[in-house]
Structure formats: structure tokens, C-alpha cells
């Protein structure tokens, strides 16, 4: 692991996503001795090592052997444990796809997969370590629930909910330095229920993961131009909150989806499925990687490149609404 990528901020209020997840998992582990944590030589990078400190006997490091890790998780679950497995998203969902599908999903084992560094959040590590296909793949496995928490607080809530819910669950988070969306862990969270982050009536942006904050930024920019933008935090991609989608279709008639993922098969496709099945007319614009592979870059630059940062979403809103925003063109320094 390159040094700079594990720089952390000590202040608890600003714990990075993965650190919060490590903390929460440890707390859950203290309350429930059925929880065991597994990693594939990424304890440090995925912060699940925090659990190891307190419960070394219930922590298993498989080394660089993710497929065996999934198999072991299946075996441990069969004996009554609740395995929480963590590795990078690309390995969890693609390298191990068959093991996740057959050993965990098909046999309906109570395994929770925490896939870190999802989407393009691993920036500098390049395409081999990005994962812009995991939502699509995991969605296609029956029995699997798929969650993409928006920030560290949501990750904490989602993890707790996941441990309390029977069955396989796949949760994808970032690399740990994403800014917070919520102010604390105190908010209503339920697997399968979208959270309305911003009220609006002109157009709806449905986002998941780190693009939710981008969507909120875009809504605030649009508000200054007199546009009323609804923002839905669709943290659970499967089962998707069809009611929330249909309500948005009926009340705003225009939908933009945003995800740090290929537009093929992920959140956008899931929303499209709901819209198509409803038979109602609606404008749908899917933001994300346009069926392309990602490139190496700083994560924020990649968000910008793929049009899923605040500006990108704001521009999409502009285009869908066919309005022009007044740009701020004052470039003189204030002295």
C-alpha cells in the first residue's frame, strides 16, 4: 500500500468511511459473538484490522486468496457464524463472482461482504483496481441485497442493519476519504428505503454512494437558478425503492441517475427497469461511466471526468431542463 493512501485524520468527528466501518464492526462484534471478520491480506487498507485488535480469535486473514475467503465465509456461515468479509470491490465482486454466487448466494448463506475502494475511488491505483461493474454483477445474483452507502455515517447504519438482516448482503464503499453527507448517525435508515436528501418538484436526481453528495451540490447550484431539484439517496440498489422512483416519475417527470459505476447494469438500469415496468412516460438520463473503462487519476478528477461531480450533475440538470445557468465570471482578486 502506497504511504499517502493510508494517511488518516485522527479526529473522531472526521473518521474516514472505512475507519467508521472498522469501529462499528468492532462494536457489533462486542455485542454479537457470532460475528467473525475475514480479509484477504487487506486488513490495513480496508480498516477491518480494527476488529482484529479486539477479537483476534474471530478474525481470519486468508492472505491474497479471495476465492478461498468467500468459500470459508460460506463454511463459517453454515456453522452459525455471521462472517463479515472485506476486500477491494473488484476482487470481491469479480474475482470471486462465482464463489459469491454459488457458495454464498445460491446457498443463501448469511455472509456480509464489505467491498471497499469501489467505483473509481481508488484513483491512482488504476483500472485494475477500480470496479465499475460490481453493482451490475451483484444485482444479478438472486438472494443478494446490494447497498451503496453515501458516507461514513450511512456505512455505519448500513452495516448494523446488514448484520441484523438474514441473508447475503453486498455493501460497496469508497476508499475512506470521502466527505460526509450526513451530520451524524442519527437519521432514519432502513434497507430498501430511499432517503430524500433535498426536496424538489422540477426534476429528480437519484444517486448512490459518493455521488449523493455531488447530487446535493448540484441541487444547491440549481436552486440558485430557481430550479427545484429533488435528490434521492438510493443507498439500496437492490431491492430498489420502487415506490420512491415511481413517486419521482409521477411528481417530477424527469429523472437523472448518478453512480460511480458503468451506466450499464447499475443504479441507472435498476431505475430504468422500474420506470419501464410502470408504463409511464419519463425523461431518464443516466450519469456514470458511459460503458467505458476508467483511467488513472485523482478520485475527484475522475468524478469530474465522468460527469458525476456536482458540476457534472448540475450540467446534466441544465441540459434536461434546457435552461442556462448564470456563471460567476468575476475573476478579479478581492484586495
Amino acid at each position, binding site marked *: 500500500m502506497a504511504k499517502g493512501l493510508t494517511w488518516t485524520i485522527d479526529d473522531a468527528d472526521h473518521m474516514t468511511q472505512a475507519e467508521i466501518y472498522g469501529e462499528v464492526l468492532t462494536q457489533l462484534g462486542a455485542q454479537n459473538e457470532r460475528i467473525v471478520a475475514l480479509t484477504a491480506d487487506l486488513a490495513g487498507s480496508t480498516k477491518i484490522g480494527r476488529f482484529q485488535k479486539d477479537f483476534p480469535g474471530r478474525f481470519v486473514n486468508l492472505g491474497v486468496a479471495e476465492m478461498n475467503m468467500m468459500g470459508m465465509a460460506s463454511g463459517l456461515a453454515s456453522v452459525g457464524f455471521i462472517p463479515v468479509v472485506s476486500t477491494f470491490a473488484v476482487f470481491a465482486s469479480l474475482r470471486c463472482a*462465482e464463489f459469491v454466487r454459488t457458495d454464498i448466494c445460491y446457498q443463501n448463506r448469511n455472509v456480509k461482504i464489505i467491498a471497499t475502494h469501489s467505483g473509481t475511488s481508488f484513483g491512482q491505483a488504476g483500472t485494475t483496481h477500480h470496479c465499475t461493474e460490481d453493482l451490475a454483477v451483484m444485482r444479478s445474483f438472486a438472494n443478494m441485497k446490494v447497498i451503496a452507502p453515501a458516507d461514513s455515517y450511512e456505512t455505519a447504519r448500513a452495516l448494523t442493519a446488514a448484520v441484523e438482516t438474514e441473508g447475503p448482503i453486498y455493501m460497496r464503499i469508497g476508499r475512506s476519504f470521502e466527505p460526509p453527507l450526513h451530520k451524524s448517525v442519527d437519521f432514519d435508515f432502513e434497507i430498501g428505503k430511499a432517503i430524500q436528501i433535498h426536496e424538489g418538484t422540477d426534476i429528480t436526481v437519484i444517486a448512490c454512494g459518493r455521488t449523493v453528495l455531488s447530487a446535493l451540490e448540484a441541487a444547491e447550484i440549481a436552486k440558485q437558478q430557481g430550479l427545484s431539484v429533488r435528490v434521492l439517496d438510493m443507498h439500496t440498489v437492490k431491492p430498489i425503492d420502487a415506490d420512491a422512483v415511481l413517486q419521482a416519475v409521477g411528481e417530477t417527470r424527469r429523472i437523472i441517475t448518478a453512480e460511480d459505476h458503468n451506466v450499464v447494469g447499475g443504479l441507472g438500469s435498476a431505475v430504468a427497469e422500474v420506470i419501464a415496468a410502470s408504463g409511464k412516460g419519463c425523461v431518464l438520463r443516466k450519469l456514470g461511466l458511459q460503458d467505458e473503462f476508467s483511467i488513472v487519476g485523482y478520485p475527484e478528477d475522475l468524478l469530474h471526468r465522468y460527469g458525476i461531480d456536482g458540476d457534472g450533475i448540475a450540467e446534466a440538470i441544465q441540459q434536461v431542463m434546457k435552461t442556462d445557468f448564470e456563471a460567476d465570471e468575476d475573476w478579479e482578486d478581492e484586495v
Partner: protein
Amino acid sequence: MALQADERQQLERKANEIRKEIVKITYTCGGTHIGGSLSQTDIVVALYYKYLKLDPKNPEWKDRDRFLLSKGHGGVGHGAVLADVGFFPRSELDDFNKTGSPFGMHLDRLKVKGVDASTGSLGHGLGIGNGMAYGARLLGKTWRTYVLLGDGELNGGPTWEAAMAAGHFKLANLTAFVDRNHLCIDGATEDIMALEPLRGKWEAFGWNALEIDGHDYDQICEAVEAAYQETERPTVIIASTIKGKGVDFMENQASWHYGGLDEAMRDQALESLSKE
């Protein structure tokens, strides 16, 4: 403990019965992985009739021994034993391979009582077995985990990941078998993707590795019991077997990895088995 003569005879007779069942089911359902099911039968019989702590009336019994048929295509051979031991009525096997039947080429844990994992896609059994063995130890249980692997299956990486982990975690409550019938689908294992020296490989991964004749009950039982003496290492029993064992026209033929039988072939097969 050495095998008594009458116990050995009972086991051999039971194995012969099971092999005949395999032939009959293969005839009824149109085709099965008969070669490998025949080669594995002595190991499976030894386990189910002498060693595995099970309660057929209570398949979910928490403290049962676990058996994983990692070479899941041996399902018909396993199914025959499970029925005979009493997990479900033998008549259900008549629907083998039929639509809606709980029985297909590969036994499904969710549908068939007595099956501990849905295998078939090779390379999964040892990993899952690791999880079970590790879990047993965490829970302080004494039940054991047995995993039966195919030799062709050992070409794939995941099994070696699992082997390395089992050695590393010192899973002494885990016993693996390799149904070493020296054949995979396209031919001899040593021609397609050589495995030898196989014993050395397992030992290198931290296992207690034993080589036996997979059709000799004295050797099978001695090996199974030797594993019980281990405290620091898992045990693998590399059992040299004959694919298609007991049916003269199938023995050592790669082509009988999978096949169907018409009435004539069935009768010929049964006759061959009766001569054993």
C-alpha cells in the same frame, strides 16, 4: 484399530450394492458421471458406514460430522449412499435428472437432505470445508469435516489456496481425500496437466499426506484413523482408484467420465459387478 474380517466384508458388500444402484440409476435417468462415482464409492462407504457421526432423521443436527463432495459430479454415487443410510426414500432417486426433481448431476444442498454444500463447480469444497473446520474449532466442537476431491480438480487454483490456508491454520479437524483415478475428461491427468509429485505438494503446504489404495478397506480405515492422531496438521488421503471400478468395460476409461446405459449395457454392468 485393525479392521475385523467380517467388518471388512460388510463394507465391501455394501460398496458393491451401492455400485449396482449407481448403474441402475444411470440406466433410468439417461446418463450420469458414472466413472467417478464408481471410483469414489469405497471411500464414501467407509465414511458413511463406519466413521461419520450423523442422524439421518435429523439432517441439520448441529454436531454432525460434515462431508463435502467437492467433486460434485460424483453426486449420483453420493445420493445412492444418502438414500441407503436413510436421509430420504430410495424411490426419490428414480427421478434423477428430471425437471423439478431435487436430484440433478450435482447434488443441491437446498434440495437434498444430508448434503452439506452445493458443489459441482470444482474448487469450492476445500474452501468451504476450511470454513466449517475453522468454525468448529472456534465453537470448541469435536465434529470433523471431510472433503472428497477429484484429481482433475486439483489443477485449479482455489483448491491450493484452500490447501495453503488449511495448513496455515493447522486445521487438524479436517480430512481431505483425493479420488486419484488418474483420469480427467480429456484423458490421463498426467498427459493433460500433470499432478505428480502430488504427495509432495500437499506436504509442502503443511499437510499430513498419505497414499493408499482407494479400494482397500484396511488401508482406507487405517488412513482415516491416522488423521485422528494429528493435532497440528490437516490430513489428505490420496487414494489411488480405478475410474469405473467394478464394471469391466468402464474401468480406466476416460470416456466413461460421463455416460448413459441402455438395457444391454446395464445388464452387462450388473453382471460385472456380481463377479466382484
